[in-house]
């Protein structure tokens, strides 16, 4: 039964294969196949989780995949506490999202294709979680990347969706090649890509004290982190994620909550041994995360598209997780990953319900007053918003507090930034909530309605999770979740509880909510427009996302295209030109030679002919046609020859 965990990603993969080949025949029932597969996976994941929890053992199973000479690459599964928790989270959230999508995608012509790709996506994510080596992780990682391309660009007839899909794939691909090189570097330095072998090999190599090896491994760690930057949308490769909102909302929930973005964080956690040994790498991770958290929160303040606000909040929360890992607060980061998966999935699905009920309008400025029309959605959404804002005892509070605690001990600057980000988070989340659900509807032409039960049910389940999941990880329960991760000794940074940090974090959350109430309540005390004017350039910068997209267009995309055109012109002009020029030269030479032939070579031949002709005219005279004359000459010749012979002999 060791390969049982391997089945967990295989089931959705099979679902994908079944649906993609029989899509037309299955029709609506495609969703049953997909949900069935994920549900079975979830059950299996629960079994695995319970087993790992109970025995604290690591499940592992592998087979030889490729062999060259004495070297072999093995593929297989390895599930420890971390993996088991992730499996549980991914399958549960994923299944709920799929159930939700049954309602959301109903009536879409491409219903079955949607479920096919979602299944493949799940397979990719689950494969990544169970992978026992970096290569298999990379394979799943890429499959997920491809699915994100299809899912983000799902409405492919919309040019903006197709462009967003490409943007997502290529941006993450940049990170992927970093990971690829990191893997290769690691292979050449440590000689293995298997996590359990790395756990032994890396400390041994680091213990050598060889500066070159240290440098190589640090470089490998940083390159692997480049992969994380791409996948988890950290600055500066974050640009794809907000655009990824072009996909259907369940996809946004899947990508931004449970799976894809979590993969990057998970990668760092998985290969944490590398980072733990090299503080330089850790520092980079921490600062990238911290910066992203603050940066994204600043942008989220001013966005008006409901999904975009959530997207930037995702960026910001991912920044928290990455920062936590970078600060050595491994368990806190992973805990936040889990809680975030629940409340962020809930937020997206709630937003999806709003959009669904609001006839696919996403602009918050046209909403308002939906509380009465969509009570289920509003209540669950409120739970999630409170959770992300960090109000105890909801899940977000506990995990975020753990991170800030780590920052407080490790890096005061990041702690300040993190706390400020927490304030901003509370503010913009409640800005969103107030703008959407309270007051009265600003665009009266749209008749909003509550979503069907199939969409509400997952919302409720997730709301329960978002509310209560923090408890097992709270200090009341002795940080049970964190301990269940089997945190390796190398990653154990145990921080003493601090009332200051906790109190401050609650205070800023409440302050943020209060400020949002003042500005965006039905009867605002502070006019947002005046604040915006007061902020001046800062406001426009935030509204325009700090112009990162434009900068990239100017610095990277356009030069790349120009380079492509230039290369093509170079190819046509210079290389092919050289070839054609060679051809032309040969032809020119040939015609020259033709002239030469005509006048010189032929000339000589003709001259010879003329000479011969002239001579023949002369010698023709002796060709009388009379036998006698010939005979005479022949005799003369014979005589001459005889004379010569005799002369020689004599």
């Amino acid at each position: 039964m060791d390969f049982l965990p391997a089945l967990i990603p295989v089931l959705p993969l099979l679902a994908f294969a079944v649906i993609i080949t029989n899509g037309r025949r299955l029709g609506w029932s495609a969703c049953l196949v997909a949900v069935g597969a994920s549900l079975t996976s979830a059950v299996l994941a629960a079994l695995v989780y319970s087993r790992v929890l109970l025995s604290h053992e690591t499940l592992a199973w592998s087979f030889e995949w490729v062999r060259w000479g004495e070297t072999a690459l093995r593929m297989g599964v390895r599930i420890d506490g971390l993996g088991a928790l992730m499996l549980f989270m991914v399958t549960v959230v994923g299944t709920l999202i799929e159930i939700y999508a049954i309602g959301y995608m109903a009536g879409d012509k491409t219903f079955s294709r949607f479920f096919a790709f979602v299944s493949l996506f799940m397979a990719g994510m689950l494969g990544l979680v169970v992978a026992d080596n970096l290569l298999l992780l990379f394979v799943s990682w890429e499959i997920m990347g491809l699915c994100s391309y299809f899912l983000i660009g799902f409405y492919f007839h919309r040019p903006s969706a197709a462009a967003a899909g490409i943007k997502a794939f290529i941006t993450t691909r940049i990170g992927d090649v970093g990971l690829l090189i990191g893997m290769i570097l690691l292979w050449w330095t440590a000689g293995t890509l298997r996590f359990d072998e790395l756990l032994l090999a890396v400390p041994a190599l680091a213990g050598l004290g060889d500066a070159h090896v240290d440098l190589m491994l640090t470089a490998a760690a940083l390159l692997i982190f480049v992969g994380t930057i791409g996948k988890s949308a950290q600055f500066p490769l974050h640009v794809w994620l907000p655009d990824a909102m072009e996909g259907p909302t369940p996809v946004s929930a899947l990508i931004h909550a449970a799976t894809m973005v979590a993969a990057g964080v998970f990668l760092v956690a998985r290969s944490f041994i590398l980072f733990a040994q090299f503080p330089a790498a850790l520092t980079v991770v921490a600062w990238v995360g911290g910066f992203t958290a603050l940066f994204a929160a600043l942008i989220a303040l001013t966005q008006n598209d409901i999904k975009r606000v959530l997207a930037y909040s995702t960026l910001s929360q991912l920044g928290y997780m990455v920062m936590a890992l970078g600060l050595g607060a491994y368990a806190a980061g992973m805990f936040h990953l889990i809680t975030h998966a629940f409340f962020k999935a809930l937020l997206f699905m709630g937003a999806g319900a709003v959009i669904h009920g609001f006839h696919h309008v996403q602009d918050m400025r046209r909403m308002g007053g939906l509380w009465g029309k969509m009570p289920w959605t509003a209540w669950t959404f409120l739970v999630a918003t409170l959770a992300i804002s960090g109000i105890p005892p909801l899940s977000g509070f506990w995990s975020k507090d753990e991170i800030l605690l780590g920052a407080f001990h490790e890096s005061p600057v990041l702690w300040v930034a993190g706390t400020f980000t927490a304030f901003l988070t509370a503010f913009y989340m409640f800005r969103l909530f107030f703008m959407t659900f309270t007051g009265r509807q600003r665009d009266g032409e749209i008749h909003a309605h509550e979503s069907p039960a199939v969409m509400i049910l997952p919302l409720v389940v997730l709301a329960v999770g978002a509310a209560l999941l923090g408890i097992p990880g709270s200090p009341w329960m002795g940080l049970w979740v964190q301990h269940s991760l089997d945190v390796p000794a190398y990653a154990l940074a145990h921080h003493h509880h601090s009332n200051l940090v906790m109190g401050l974090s609650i205070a800023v959350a409440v302050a943020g909510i209060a400020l949002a109430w003042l500005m965006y309540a039905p009867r605002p005390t502070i006019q947002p427009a005046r604040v915006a004017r007061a902020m001046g350039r800062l406001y426009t910068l935030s509204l325009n996302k700090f112009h990162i997209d434009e900068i990239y267009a100017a610095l990277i995309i356009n030069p790349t295209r120009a380079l492509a055109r230039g290369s093509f012109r170079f190819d046509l002009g210079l290389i092919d030109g050289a070839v054609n020029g060679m051809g032309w030269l040969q032809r020119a030479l040939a015609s020259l030679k033709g002239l030469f032939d005509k006048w010189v070579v032929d000339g000589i031949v003709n001259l010879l002919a003329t000479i011969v002709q002239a001579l023949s005219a002369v010698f023709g005279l002796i060709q009388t046609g009379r036998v006698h004359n010939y005979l005479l000459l022949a005799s003369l010749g014979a005589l001459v020859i005889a004379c010569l012979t005799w002369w020689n002999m004599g």
Partner: protein
Amino acid sequence: MPLLTITTFTPLVGLLLILLFVDGRRVNTVRWMGVIFSFLPLLLSAAIVAVHQPSNPDFQLVERLSWIPALGIEYHLGVDGISVPMVVLTALLSFVAALGSWNITDRAKEYWIFFLLLQVGMFGTFVSLDLFLFYVFWEIVLVPMYFLIGIWGGPRREYSAIKFFLFTLVGSVAMLIGFLAIYFAVEPHTFSIPVLLGRTGSLPHTLQSVVFLAIFLGFAIKVPVVPFHTWLPDAHVEAPTPISVILAGVLLKMGTYGFFRIGFPLLPEGARQWSFAFAVLGVIGIVYTAYVAMAQRDFKKLVAYSSVSHMGFVLLGMAGFTLVGFSGAYFMTVSHGVLSGAMFLCVGVLYDRTHTRDLDAFGGLMARMPIYGGMLILFSCGALGLPGLSGFVAEFLSLLGAFGRHPWLVGISVLGIVITAAFMLLMMRRVLMGPLNERWANLSDISARELWSLIPLAVATIALGVFPPLLMHITDPTLARMLGIIGFEVAP
């Protein structure tokens, strides 16, 4: 039973039958015979795989007859781990291309005669173990190809055909000179590859490096290596679809096969001396042609340039001089054969329906042709190196193998991977996505015949990507032994 001879000359039998007994106006008879005689080698190649013992790195199924005894030239055939996959690939793609040739009715008799002759040359190249014989088959390929492009090609067919012919001929001549140099350098003079294997390694280094350059030129033009690649886009664009398939799928492989069979094992010192230049050319090929491909509007040219870009990985992988690098380079050779062949078939499917290859003229075809779209996406993903498909394994192993020797070059080459992903996705977007171009509102989806010519390739792509040992257990013993002969480390 002389299996290799039978395989090689079965198409010749078909050729003679068509030539002598079939009236050219009976197109149906001609093409049925052509397809059947392209299918028989596929069966025979399956037999070769069945008989071949992968664990034995020696030449097997050897046939050896004296041919021109005065010069020590022999009719010497045999296969080892690096020729068997090539024979299978050739047989498979020939059959697929034969199916793709179904619509050719113009001068069908001549077409099939040239097509079958082409197969003879290709099989012969991959199974001959005598340099002279190798050269003969190598040149045999050239002639039918010239006519196939020049007669059945597009508007600029004469230009392309002549360009192809001259380019390749220049390379062949350089190669022949190299062969002669080897021939005269060893005592006793011989062209036999198995005999030369152990002998040439001790030749003077200068000689080796010069001869390697000459032979390199011959193979590099065929591969093609930048900057000798410009015949390829023209030839591909003008050639009819099945011929593009053969050209990309098999003919380019003759070049890389030449490196594996002759260039590296016979001239190890030469190869070692030029390995850096070799790798640099590979990286230039990967990155530069990817950029060029990005700028294309013509679908077929895009595929052609991407094909050149992929062959760069072969060079880079080989330049690492490790088993995994060689293995990856060889994997790329096979994988690229399958993928580029499939890509050209995809282009052909579209061209048959729309009579244009301008990427900007399409759009939204996914809605009209979902099965075709799926196939195109599958092969594009394979080409851009998506894990789970053959292209990824090839790229990964090549880069892994080359990294130890050329870390910075490998670092640069990944830029090509990103660019490849970019232009492949842009291509998919321009063809399949966006709003449906109303011109193509009545387009029919892929036909059963077209689909069945793609399915074997799709299966191969996925199978090789998921389970690489399928190929590697055949090739690796041979490659390991070759590296042993060359004298390089087999690790890591």
